[in-house]
């Protein structure tokens, strides 16, 4: 399990990176934390001629707050978030998700941008950030564009990214006061890929909410309007109103034929709802694994 030979370059600015990406022949891959592409190279599932290391671009490693939006550079690591080295507008939600990703060595290197671009359906950020209503900022030679995450992730390991584009940042809207957040995943073993993910971001005051059922075969199942899961109305009593049958229906409509799989996903979502209703937020560092 040794990779096929490849060239490796590490541009030191975004323009240089984009220029190199545009002129490079086919068979170029980007590397940030290398937690997915590393094994894929070793298994020779990819054999790029050139690897561009994007961690030399300072902009991609920064995080900042713009008004009500948290902007995380693509190369911010899971551990940066877990350890609180970046700002937070989500009341600790991001930290708790980050703390339960794989194992600490993976979190030390793995990046939020890399996880989204790799778009493994079982990855935490794909589901959690979709539920939080995040957008991704994409740069190409013709400028920048911003896309809601649910339109960026188009399938398992598939994203809407042009050949000469890169994801530069994730834009996470603040979790408003009074909003409830619940995120639960089910793994066969702590640290392994999730078999089911449930995430809800509910605003009982406004009667609004988003829900995500993740770790499915394709992109996460998003209910951008989660009211059907709660009998048509999201209020302070949302936990009591959760309708497992509606969640099951959503999964059936999304094409999940397997009864056992649906049961597990619905259970996990119901526990995310229960977590959202829990009066006290859990510790900032404890993993939220089912």
């Amino acid at each position, binding site marked *: 399990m*040794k990779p*096929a030979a490849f060239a490796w370059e590490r541009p030191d600015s975004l323009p240089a990176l984009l220029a190199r990406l545009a002129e490079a022949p086919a068979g170029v891959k980007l590397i940030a934390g290398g937690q997915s592409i590393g094994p894929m190279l070793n*298994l*020779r599932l990819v054999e790029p001629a050139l690897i561009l290391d994007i961690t030399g671009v300072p902009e991609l490693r920064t995080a900042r707050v713009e008004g009500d939006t948290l902007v995380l550079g693509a190369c911010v690591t899971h551990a940066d978030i877990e350890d609180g080295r970046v700002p937070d507008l989500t009341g600790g939600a991001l930290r708790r998700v980050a703390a339960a990703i794989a194992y600490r060595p993976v979190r030390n290197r793995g990046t939020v941008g890399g996880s989204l671009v790799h778009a493994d359906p079982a990855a935490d950020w794909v589901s959690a950030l979709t539920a939080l209503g995040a957008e991704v900022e994409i740069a190409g030679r013709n400028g920048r564009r911003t896309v809601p995450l649910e339109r960026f992730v188009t399938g398992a390991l598939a994203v809407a990214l042009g050949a000469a584009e890169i994801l530069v940042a994730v834009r996470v809207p603040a979790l408003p006061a009074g909003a409830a957040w619940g995120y639960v995943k089910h793994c*066969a073993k*702590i640290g392994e890929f999730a078999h*089911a993910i449930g995430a809800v971001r509910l605003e009982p005051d406004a009667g609004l909410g988003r829900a995500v059922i993740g770790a499915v075969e394709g992109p996460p199942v998003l209910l951008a309007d989660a009211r059907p899961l709660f009998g048509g109305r999201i209020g302070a009593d949302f936990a009591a109103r959760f309708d497992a049958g509606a969640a099951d229906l959503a999964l059936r409509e999304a094409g999940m034929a397997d009864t*056992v799989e649906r049961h597990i996903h619905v259970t996990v979502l119901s526990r995310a709802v229960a977590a959202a209703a829990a009066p006290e937020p859990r510790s900032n560092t404890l993993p939220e694994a*089912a």
Partner: protein
Amino acid sequence: MSREGVGAPLPRKEDDRLMRGRGQYVGDLRLPGMQDVAFVRSPLAHARIRAVHVPEAYRDRVFTAADLDGVLPIRAVSGLPGFKVSEQPVLATGKVRQVGELVAMCVAPTRAEAEDIAAAVVLDLEELPAVHDMLAAREPGSALVHEHWGDNVFLETLVDVGIESALDAPIKVSRTISTGRQCMAPIEGRGTVVQLDHRLDQLVVHTASQMPHIVRNGLSECLGIEQGRIRIVSPDVGGGFGYKAILLAEDVALAWLALRCGHPVRWLEDRREHLTSNANCREHHYRITAYAERDGRLRGIDCEATVDSGAYSAYPFSACLEAAQVASILPGPYDFPAYRCRTWSVATNKCPILPYRGVARTGVCFALELVLDAVARAAGIAPEAVRERNLVRPEQMPFENITKKHFDSGDYPEALARALKAVDVDAIRARQRQGEPDGRRIGLGLAIYCEQAAHGTSVYSGWGIPMVPGHEQASARLTPDGGLELRIGAHSHGQGLETTLAQVAHEILGVPVARTRLVHGDTAMTPYSTGSWGSRVMVMAGGAVAAACEELRARAVRIGAHLLQARPDACRFEGGHVVGPTGDVPLEAIARTWYRRPQDLAPDTDPGGLEVTAGYKPVRDSGTFSYAAHAAVVAVDPDLGAVEILDYVIVEDGGTLVNPLVVDGQIYGGLAQGIGTALFEEMRFDARGQPLASTFADYLLPGAADVPMARIDHMETPSPYTRFGQKGIGEGGAIAPPAALANAVNDALAPLGVELLHSPATPRRIVEAVLATRAPAVTAREAA
């Protein structure tokens, strides 16, 4: 002087280097001119080879079966009547019979370049129907793995001890029980570096092996060269568990290549090769019926057991060790009057099945202990009551069981009683009645086994396999400065032999453990041995080291007596000194005299000096029987299938413990692997015989968070047959956990009507079983 002998809980000497990352494994070897090998392996489970296309540029770097002039296939024959012989070619000829079978060998300065070459070799294969299901493989009309056999059965056996007498029992419980196929997954995979020593005209084969001398036998036979031209060196070994007790085709191929190329060559197994091509174990299937009285007393056990042996008979243990052993050990620690067991060792298009820690015992314990719980439910009595009524009792010891196994000693009911007390059965039952606030369900599971270990000539000669253990030998040599060197032919793959055998020597000679060195893992420097397997080393090599040290002590006493000017029978040996009527002389002075001042020796001194090779066999070689009662308490989430181990108790009897710390370490390690078998590990195959996991993302091993801190309670009933009363315990930790945990899960879910009969109990299987009880019409995507 500190107490360092038998029974002392000394930290392991070898850990100083191993825990600091200073161990020396095959992968650490760097030899001048060494080149790397990558193999072209079959992508198909079963296919006829039409052609192997090697690009012209790589003609001198790629070797196929056609190049291997004079190399014989690996043959691991069993002498059991009716055994059909498989020939495992070193590089495939004619057909490939498993995914990962070696087809071509590519050599290059680095592994990456060798893999480049391997990727350029094109195989022209005609796919054949894969034999992937061991039960279907027994049916007429199945595709054949070895055509000339006429069927797919390596061996069929039958034992029948009056089963007729049990058939009218009031309770009859039948179950179909099966265990998943596994990979052993030691931290270090296999690896081989071969160099040609021109001065000695010798192939020096560095390979991670539990049995260097047996590898030399096999290599010599396959290559057709005399044993004197082969030296096997097994350096530090990063876990074996049986996987390194096998002669691999890779070993033979590399040895041939070194002869051909003249420069050192290396192959290091990668994890994908390990999982998909080489390391398979455990897949058993049982149809088992228990006959019992209403009080749970067993009247008889009737069983049909099938083992998926894979494509070839592995050297030296053969393809039938697992299944045929099932028939002899299925009765476990229980006493009942009637028994029948029919077994099949079935050839399939999978990697050969290899012995993995516990070997057949893990599957046998799983089948029997699950069916005992079923008996308890059918009789309406507690699971512990069924066991209490059937365990062999201490007053029966030594006991010959229904398959003529000779249990040497022990108190099995006491082990059970202690385990029940430790987990507090009454408290668990009360908690179960109360229910859990989080909706989970609590369950208690029991499993008891006895483990025949260090069984010798009289047992293995009957198998007629390429390896029969005889006397075990050890050499002991005092150095001129009074240090001690021990040499054994078995090898440590993590057991701590450098410490424990030094403790044995200390018991006899009083030499500090720090001044005793163990030389092992090298055929050039050690006495012949069948190696480290069958939980045998502490009994066999321990006994041999003691025997050598005793002879050394006798010689030392005679020299010391002369130095003291006393008669030998007036002297005694104590604390490393020869003590006479008028004074004493330390071993160092005796050694100095023999080596450096021979002028001080008596004229009639023993010319053998202070170097002894001695042989050893226990008083009986039918094996020691260690045993244990395991009790597991779990919490099961019926909606997600998650299993949390709340408590785990092991009451174990390994006889005299040479080093209790090392024994505990063995038990913890075995438990971790047993938890893997119980809950996580499974190598699945599709209908084309393709293995469905190629990385640890798909083949799940238990992690640190999944292994509880078990509570271990030792009983110490010395074996009457071994030197210090020690019993082999190396494998036991891995035997009972799958049964104990499955019984615990079933106990938790029994009120829902769930009974799981397949390991591992994955979340998916548990949820599937729970849902099946709620809505019988559920269509399952996979069989439970």
